Structure formats: C-alpha cells, structure tokens
C-alpha cells in the first residue's frame, strides 16, 4: 500500500466511524504532514489529530483507528523475533509463562509504560495466537492472552507491593486496578494491530472501534463507561443551559419599547439608530418524573434524573418518583448543590423501598402512583415516564396512565431500548406508546436532545 492509499483508507475509516472529515481537512492533513518530519510516529499522530479531529470526545476513536492504520510495529518487531521457539519447553506454558508473569508483575509495580507496552506485544505473540487452517485464516485473541496471563491475579501482589511502599490501602487498590486496566487495553490494542496486519485494516475498524461515550447505549455500557458517562452529565447540563439561555435570549425580543427607544435616540440627535424591545416572559412548567429503577434500566433512570436536576432552573419545580412495583418519592435526594456521588448512593438505597416483591410491575406502580401522588399531576405540569415498559406480563393499567397523561399539560415516555425492540417479549412499549408518546433515548446525545426539546 502506498502512503497515499494508507492516508485515503485512514480518512475513509474515520468517516465510517462517524467523524466528519471533509475533503478540505484531508488536504490540510497532507499539508501539515509536509511540514513535519516523519521519523516520530507521535508527530504524525499529532499532525493528523490537529487537522482532522475537531471534537475532543472523538479522540478515542481517532486513536484506535490511527493505531490500526499506522501500526506501532510489524509482527513481533525486531526485538521479538528471537522469541519464536522457546529454549526450554513450549513457548506458552511452564517456565516461560512463569517468567513472563514475573516480568509483568515487575513492570506493573514500577508503572513503566514502555515495559508494559513491550510485554503486551509479547503476551499477544506468545499466548494469543489462534492458528488458522490456511493463510489469512489465523487470528489473534486478546481474550486468550489475558486469560493465560491473568493479570487480575497479579493485582493482589501489586497491592501488597504498593502498601509496602507506603501508599494507603484504598489508593493502592485503585492504582493497581488502573495499571492492570492499562495493560489489558494495551493487549487489546496489540491484538487489533495483529489482526489488522493479517486481514487488512478495513476489516478490523468496523468491528473493534467502540462508539464515543455520548453515543454509547446505556444498556450496553460497561461499569467503567457508566462512571465516565456520569462525569459527562454535568458538562452536558452546562452546555444545555448555555444553549437554552442563548435561545431564550434570541426569542426575547418582544414588542417595541417606545419609551426606551426615544430616550436612547437623544444621544444621536433624535435619530433612533437602535431600537429597544420589551423582554418576553419565559414560560416554565412543573416536571413530574416517574422512573423505573429495576436492574435493567436503573442506570438510564439515574442519568436522566441527574440531567433533569442539573437543569432545574429551567423548570419551576421538579418532583421525582422511583418505582419497581411500588412508588417512592425521591425529590428530597436532589438538593441544590448536592454531591453527585451522595445522590447516586441515596438513589440506590431508595430502590429497596420501591420494591415490594422485586419484580417490575408497571400496572401496580402506576396505580399506586395515581392513588398516593395523583394530585401532583395537573394542568401546569408535565409528566415524564422513564422505563423500558417490560412489565413481566402483568396488568398494564393503561386507563390509569391515560388518565394521568390526560390531566398533565404534556406527557412523554422515554425508552432506553432501540425502537425495534419495542413490543417484543414482555415489552409493553407499543401499547403504552398508544397512550403516551414514546421517545427512544438510548445514549447521552439523544437524552440531551430530548431534554433540550422539552424546556
């Protein structure tokens, strides 16, 4: 492949992964590459990043694709060539495995990035090979490599080492976990590189590159992703709030304020050069949020609640209720300026109150809500129901919901599942959707759009 082919393939792959790289930006990248020296891979990466990546969250995707198209090394590299047949015994078990784990433990303890990178390459080469029957059929597995090395067993040892070095226990746990995580990511990256080398980069890009954090499905998120998403909620709220004030500002030009205009015209000899207008009153509603907090959709409900509360200035009041098969009010959890982590803990604790038998029952929850808190829904309030509508085939209490929706000024149902799954299995999303407009809300981007739309 010529250099130009690689460049074009790279840009194509970026576009396929959702980065909007225009032709002009591609040309800029080439212009930038002409101005720098190519001896250093990081320089090339930085030059590409400056010209092609215009949004910080996309940087992760960019790096992953860059690593595939401009790999760090070919095969096992120069240093690794001697590794092929082990001197004593098979290369991937027995003393060799022991020796490798020793080296890894040492590198993890010292936190030496270069050593970890080299070991990741070695791990994939030694333990991750999945020989195929013919050329092009063999592959490499990060999973197998990590299973054989099992770095999680090394965590304990690492923690002990750090404790001995005078780090306190909690800190040591966190540090050890993070370093092992780094190693696991390096191994995954190297396996990708190997596969790309074998099969061509375009085969790898589509399957291995994860969407950016704001496009990641709530239901598909890993634990670490959820933490990262939580960090995103506050900035997202800030962006939304900035956008809202700006839009309200733009719409604020009401009728002409004759008095102020005439007064201002005195400065310009009676010529009214600038006109002044009366501001419009912003319109605010009460928001009633009713969230399903059963296991499958709990994280989605939490994000939505956090976002709604971060934007509470845009509403005149917010009441929040959680349910599994019983309803409990959680409005008090969200004090102004409350700490995010505390709020999450209290929310998690409230789930136990919201469940009598622990099985989601929308019908029962809605009925109980209407009985106990029905008065909070009125002509000035908007009702927002969060949940996947999977009610374990129980009674749906459709008339109750219809009555609530009829009383409210607006009503919406946010569903974290893809629209094609609505109405499958025990999902009653389609039937509820007939009563209340149902909106698909699978990731932070969609959530942001929706919340922006209703305020």
């Amino acid at each position, binding site marked *: 492949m010529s250099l130009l082919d690689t460049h074009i393939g790279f840009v194509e792959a970026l576009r396929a992964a959702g980065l*909007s790289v*225009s032709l*002009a*930006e591609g040309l*800029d990248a080439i*212009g*930038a590459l002409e*101005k*720098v020296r190519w001896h250093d891979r*990081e*320089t090339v990466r*930085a*030059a590409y*990043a*400056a*010209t092609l*990546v*215009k*949004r*910080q969250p996309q*940087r992760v995707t960019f790096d992953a694709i860059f690593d595939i198209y401009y790999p760090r090394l070919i095969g096992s590299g120069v240093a690794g060539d001697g590794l092929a047949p082990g001197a004593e015994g098979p290369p991937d078990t027995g003393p060799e495995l022991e020796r490798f784990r020793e080296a890894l433990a040492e590198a993890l303890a010292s936190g030496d990035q270069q050593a970890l990178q080299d070991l990741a390459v070695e791990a994939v080469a030694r333990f991750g090979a999945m020989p195929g029957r013919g050329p092009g059929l063999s592959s490499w597995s990060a999973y197998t490599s990590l299973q054989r090395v099992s770095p999680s067993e090394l965590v304990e040892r690492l923690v002990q080492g750090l404790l001995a070095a005078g780090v306190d226990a909690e800190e040591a746990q966190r540090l050890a976990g993070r370093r092992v995580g780094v190693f696991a990511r390096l191994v995954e990256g190297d396996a990708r590189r190997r596969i790309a080398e074998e099969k061509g980069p375009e085969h790898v890009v589509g399957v291995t590159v994860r969407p950016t954090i704001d496009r990641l499905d709530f239901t598909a998120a890993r634990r670490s992703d959820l933490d990262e998403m*939580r*960090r995103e909620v*506050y*900035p997202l709220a*800030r*962006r939304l709030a*900035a*956008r809202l*004030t*700006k839009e309200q*500002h*733009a719409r604020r030009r009401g009728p002409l304020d004759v008095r102020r205009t005439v007064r201002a015209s005195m*400065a*310009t*000899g009676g*010529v009214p*050069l600038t006109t002044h207008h009366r501001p419009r009153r912003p319109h605010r509603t009460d928001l009633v949020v009713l969230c399903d907090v059963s296991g499958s959709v709990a994280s989605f409900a939490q994000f939505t609640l956090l976002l709604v509360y971060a934007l509470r200035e845009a509403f005149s009041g917010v009441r929040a209720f959680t349910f599994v098969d019983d309803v409990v009010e959680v409005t008090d959890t969200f004090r102004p*300026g*409350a*700490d*995010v*982590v505390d709020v999450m803990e209290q929310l998690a604790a409230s789930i136990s109150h919201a469940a009598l038998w622990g099985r989601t029952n929308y019908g029962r929850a809605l009925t109980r809500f209407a009985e106990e808190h029905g008065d909070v829904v009125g002509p000035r309030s908007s009702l927002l129901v969060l949940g996947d509508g999977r009610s374990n085939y129980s009674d749906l209490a459709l008339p109750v919901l219809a009555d609530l929706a009829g009383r409210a000024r607006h009503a919406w149902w946010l569903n974290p599942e893809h629209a094609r799954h609505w109405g499958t299995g025990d999902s009653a999303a389609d039937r509820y959707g007939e009563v209340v407009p149902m909106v698909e809300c699978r990731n932070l981007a969609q959530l942001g759009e929706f919340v922006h739309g209703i305020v």
Partner: protein
Amino acid sequence: MTTWFDSAADATARLQSAGYLTDDATALTAYLAGALGKPLLVEGPAGVGKTELAKAVARATGAGLVRLQCYEGLDEARALYEWNYKKQLLRIQASQANSRESDTAWSETHDDIFTEEFLLTRPLLTAIRRDEPTVLLIDEVDKTDIEVEGLLLEVLSDFQVTIPELGTVTATRRPFVVLTSNASRELSEAVKRRCLFLPLDYPDAERERAIVTSQVPGLEDAVAAQLVDAVVRLRELELKKAPSIAESVDWARTLVALQVGDLDEATVARTLGVVLKHASDQQRAIKELKLAAR
C-alpha cells in the same frame, strides 16, 4: 510572509523562554498553525492556559497582540468595524449650516462621511490592517451567538474584511489567529473546518510541577511535589469543577504567602478554598481524602 516558528522543537524552546511550558502536541500544533497559516482553535476546561498560549506566542515571536473578547450579544459593530455615527451626524449638520445649496453639499458630504476618518476599527479589522506581525486572540468564541461565527468565516479563511463603502481590506501580513473555547457550545462545522484543533487538558504531574515552580519561584521543591500530588488526587474525584493549572498556581502562591514548609493535611483542609470553588466539592474532597474537617 512571516515565519512564526521554524519547527516544533523551535516552538517548544521559544515558548518556554516566553514562560510557557508546552507538551509535544501543543508545540507541534502551534508550529503547524504558523507554517500553514491557519487559525488555531484551542479548547479545554477553564484555567488550563488557553489564553496564555496566545499571549506566549506573541511574546515568543515579538508580535503585537490584538484581543477580541467574545460575549453574548457581540455584533459586527464591536468585532469588525463601525461607522462613527455621531461624528458623521455632526459632519452633515456642519455642511448644512455652511451652504444652503443642499444638492452639491450633499454629494460632497456623502463621499466624505464614508472615509477612513469616520471609520472606527474594531479588533478583527485592526489585526488585519496591521503591518507588524500580529497575534489575533479571539477569546471564548463559544460565548458568542451563531451569527458572529458567520462573520468570522471571511476573516479566518481569507484574512480579509469587506466594507461595502470602502471595498475589501486584505491582510498585508497574515496574523497568527488563536481562538479559544470552553466547549460550552458546539461551534459550527464551517468554523472548525477552517481551524487546526488543539484540545488542552490538565497536564501530567511532571509538567504541572515544572509549570508551578516556574510560575512561583519562591516555592520549595518538596512542597511543589506535594501540591501537584494533591491536585492530581483531587482531579480523580468526581467534582463539579476539577482544579486546573491556574488553581494550582494560585494554591502555590497561597502557600508561599503563608510560608508553609510542608503541605500536611491540616494545611490542605485550611487552604482548600483556593482550589475548589463549590461547597459540595469541598465536602467531597474532605470526605474522600479523609481530611480533618475544619
């Protein structure tokens, strides 16, 4: 055309001598912005040195700095140019007083009031018309309205400004343009396409220590190390506003002023207000770092 920096290494060295410690990506992007003659869009949280980068480039290259501070409601008249209406009105009234034959007077006046004399140049036009090397800093571009971005397009891509009455003013010398943004709003694709993009984030511990010690000369090395360590730990917590470089530097100044020789937990708890500006953030930090509450 000015050459701003000779290479990325040159950029690093000269920015450092101007008191700004860069990392490799920043130096390379600054060099590319000069070499390609493209504007540089710097994005990042508050207090990581976005504005300072523009000032450092100006200091390092001996160029003049022209600053356009963006805010909500910024318009053409404050960003580009404005006709001095009051002076024009006076001019018209004066000419009417002089001669009663309005026809000839008007055609004269009409040509007269749209000349340089009545033009008030604002930062964008000023930067373009300057003959000396210029760094144009467009600060907090995300605070403006969408319409202003449209206004920037002509300036950013062709470095020219069109004034209907005077014609098009083209830059004799391309200014080094730096746009900064807090990402409170997504900028339009058109603006982003014309710029090189540089995300600035919190620096790694080593660079941060170098920055703090270079900014606050009186600080002892041991305290600097403790300070950076504490700030890194604070950033790992889930805070509303994580402390940035500006806050670390402030903290260092505070410690120097208090003549603290050792940053122990009591001192951290006492001076936490310098780095954390939300009450809930402070409570969280005290809880997580197990500091004794005040």
